[in-house]
């Protein structure tokens, strides 16, 4: 019985994430437009775009292979798998025991690698340039991310997201400078991984500045719809990840701790999660409006800063706590 309930809850969670992801992008776009005194697109516009793309037949270059046509599915499937592991409004979900941060990084790595391959398969310079830059950014983002994970594992004794959230929520960690540094580093990595300003501009179609958009330039129809959805979902996964690690307050506790699945806790968790996602989305819009995009060869410097912050966070822990 509980296994079936767990599976249903997991499915509900995945559908919730899928449904919310484009809204998050819509909110960020709307807020950005309002900040520069434009009317902006309606909140539902990303969903409308996806629906429009689904009604169009994809056009595929005749020199491409089966990989080009299946890449969007694999990319979206890997992102959904990552979304299934990240807690949204409740702790102790079915995937909780498997929600390892390194596995999560690997799943997001699948979606990145597959899109880069698809970019190479299109056989144009655009696809290649996007793939090359995307993989280069990942080379610098990954060490910073691992150092963040390292710091968290030192503090909580685990790389499991569910366990980390549980410990943060219990208040056992208190306020720590290391956590603040890790938070900044995680945010920088998230910006790079999601292709937002100042690393990449999701709204551009100018050759020299494109990274992610260049990679997927040859896509159309339902393929493009899947990629757009995966991109939005990746942003939501990163937001949920940051929230689950650093500010998990309001999440519904584990069923084992409350004795039963309490709908009230779930509702509260859902409201808290929606609120937190909206705030992060607005903050992203404000940040993006105030920054210009960096030159490609300046991005490693930005990520180097994240790496340094991660390193400092861990070393500060060693010095202050004297692990032995």
């Amino acid at each position, binding site marked *: 019985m509980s296994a079936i309930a767990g599976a249903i809850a997991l499915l509900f969670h995945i559908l919730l994430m899928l449904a919310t992801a484009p809204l998050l992008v819509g909110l960020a776009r709307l807020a950005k437009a309002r900040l520069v005194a434009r009317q902006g697109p309606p909140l539902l516009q990303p969903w409308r775009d996806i629906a429009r793309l689904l009604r169009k037949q994809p056009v595929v270059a005749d020199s491409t292979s089966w990989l080009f046509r299946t890449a969007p599915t694999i990319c*979206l499937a890997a992102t959904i798998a990552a979304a299934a592991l990240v807690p949204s409004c409740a702790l102790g979900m079915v995937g909780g025991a*498997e929600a390892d941060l390194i596995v999560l990084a*690997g799943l997001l790595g*699948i979606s990145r690698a597959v899109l880069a391959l698809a970019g190479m398969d299109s*056989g144009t310079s655009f696809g290649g340039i996007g*793939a090359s830059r995307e993989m280069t950014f990942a080379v610098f983002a990954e060490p910073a991310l691992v*150092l963040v994970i390292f710091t968290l594992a030192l503090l909580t004794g685990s790389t499991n997201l569910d366990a980390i959230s549980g410990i943060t929520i219990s208040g056992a960690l208190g306020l720590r400078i290391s956590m603040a540094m890790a938070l900044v580093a995680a945010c920088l990595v998230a910006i790079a991984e999601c292709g937002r300003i100042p690393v990449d501009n999701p709204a551009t179609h100018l050759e020299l500045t494109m990274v992610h958009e260049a990679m997927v330039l040859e896509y159309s129809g339902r393929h493009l719809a899947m990629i757009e959805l995966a991109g939005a979902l990746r942003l939501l996964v990163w937001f949920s990840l940051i929230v689950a690690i650093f500010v998990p307050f309001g999440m519904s506790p584990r069923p084992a701790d409350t004795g039963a699945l309490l709908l009230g806790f779930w509702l509260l968790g859902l409201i808290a999660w929606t609120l937190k996602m909206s705030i992060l989305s607005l903050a992203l819009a404000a940040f993006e409006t105030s920054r210009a995009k960096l030159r490609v060869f300046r991005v490693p410097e930005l990520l180097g800063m994240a790496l340094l912050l991660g390193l400092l966070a861990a070393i500060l822990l060693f010095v202050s706590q004297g692990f032995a």
Partner: protein
Amino acid sequence: MSDLVLSAALPGLTCVMAMLTAAVPVTFAIGARLTFASSFVLCAAGAVIDLTALIGGAFPASITLPLGLAGQSTVLSLDGVSAVFLLLVLLSGAAASLAARDDHGHPMATAAALPGFIAAMMLTLLAADAFALVAGFEAMSLASFILVVTNHRDDSVQAAGRLYIGMAAWSGLCLIAAVALLAPHGAGFAAMRAAPPEIWRASVILALALLGPGSKAGLVPLHIWLPAAHASAPAPVSALMSGAMTKVALYVLIRLVFDLAGPAQPSWWGVPFIMLGAMSAVLGALRANMETDIKTILACSTIENVGLITVGLGIALAARGADVPPLAGLAMGAALLHVLAHGGFKTLMFLAAGAVQYGAGSRALQRLGGLIHRMPITAGVMLLAAASLAGLPPSAGFASEWMLFQSVLGAVRLGGLAFQVMACVLAALMALATALAAAAAVRLIGVVLLGRPRSPGAAEAHEAGPPLRWAMLLGGLGVVLVGLFPGIVLSLTRAATSTLVHTTMSDRAGLFGITTASEAPGYAPLFILALLVGAALLIGTIMRARAVQGHRAAPLWGCGFDASPEWQPHGDPLAQYGGSSFAQPLRRVLGHSLLAARESVDMPSPGETRAAQLSISLQDPTQTFLFSPVGTVREFLSGLTDRLHFLPVRQVLTLMAAVLIGLLLYIAVVEQL
């Protein structure tokens, strides 16, 4: 009954080894194809015997052969450690023998050396006395040298062969010195274990082991021979060298340091392992992004993976010294799992590279492309192996890397502040190495398999022949199984782990996954696979219900250029990204400082009709800082001796008289004392 089977394991493996050795002279009578076939059968039989022994776990067993130096006999023994490495050597040997049957006119000497090479590796693994160990190691070097110089008419192959035999001699020398230091009371391993060396002798042995067998495994700073040699050999041999021989060298390293040098070492012994391993990992992965020959790329990735394994060994050694058995077990398990996983997927990758070389006629990235259309099976196998290379879940490469990261996280509890900061930097370096490996995998696949063909050979490529295809498919199946059931594979290393670090992973590895501590959450590849497949099914269902079906093919949009002309059916091949352009950002950011990568543009002045040219140069730091200075010193010394050769008669006589008098004086002084 089962006891009988288990006790027959070592004699059976010895028979396999003897028959492989016998195949060397017999080759000239029965021909190459029959030799490869019998080598395949022998390796497969040996693998079955070894697997039975591993599952049954009746270790250790030993036999004494009445062979060897005068008055000596040879002792062979099979314990958990040798059985694990033996499994890899035999499986890799079977795949390589099968692939070699794909006829590409291998000369007779190559055909004869291949079974000899496998037998030499077996002897190294089974040896239980110093003489057999050294004999196996040297025979392995010699056989692989013959195989490396198969195409000796090529100048670059000759250069690679010279470098290889030089480095092989060096590693053999270090091994002999290390073994000699271990064996004051007898050459058998049992005698060595009975009298472990005191600390200064043990430290020298550590240094010799890292410099000798370590260089054979491809560890920095003596890794420089590896990319050249592995690229020069025929593909099945490269597969064996990268997949199996580097691991045999690691086995010798493990045997010397973990086993023969005593049951417990100080914790700091792990530090040189960790440092050299991390440097190898980063340097190898970065070079894999810069090179433009597919086999050189794969060889550089071997350096990276050997580095990762060595990091695992270092943590295991440090944890054993600090008496933290759970961490030692985890790190040792990670290292052994990565030995098997890397041995599998790298063998596969080299076989596929061979198929590409034969099918498309080139190994150069700038002459390949679009092979996925004409070589579907090779492409599928390469994609599978590349997922492991890039360390993506749920592939074989990910499980061991996950364990390795977990053991690095655990390593902070082993030492003081300096050790903790080192562990922290180590985590970042390993993440850098794995991300670089992912970029290299994407570059390799993207340029070789995808896009449009860059040469007529690639456009007319043909799929590999049946033997090679079967070798790749069977190997691929093995790699998938390792990826999905890492817990089962770990249970095969149970005896090895308990021999080396006196603990096991058996309470933390099961059918469904692996964990860092019993009852803790962990990594479950089957669950991840189920999630991925479930998500893909969900997407498929939604797309079938909601989206317009099918797709329309159209010519590639070429920024306003016309459709391709008749004589260039795939458009201008240079109008797509290639290997060098893909690597450009990494070359500028990391390659410039670490590999001394330089770009120079030769731009013709206006009016000239020659083409502009961009050339890229890079040099390994070991070449700059170690090999070139050594070469300079050698030149200087040989100049000095040359002067002696051309001395006038009078001076030669004076010199001889001076030497004579000097010697007499020396004897007189020594006599006085």
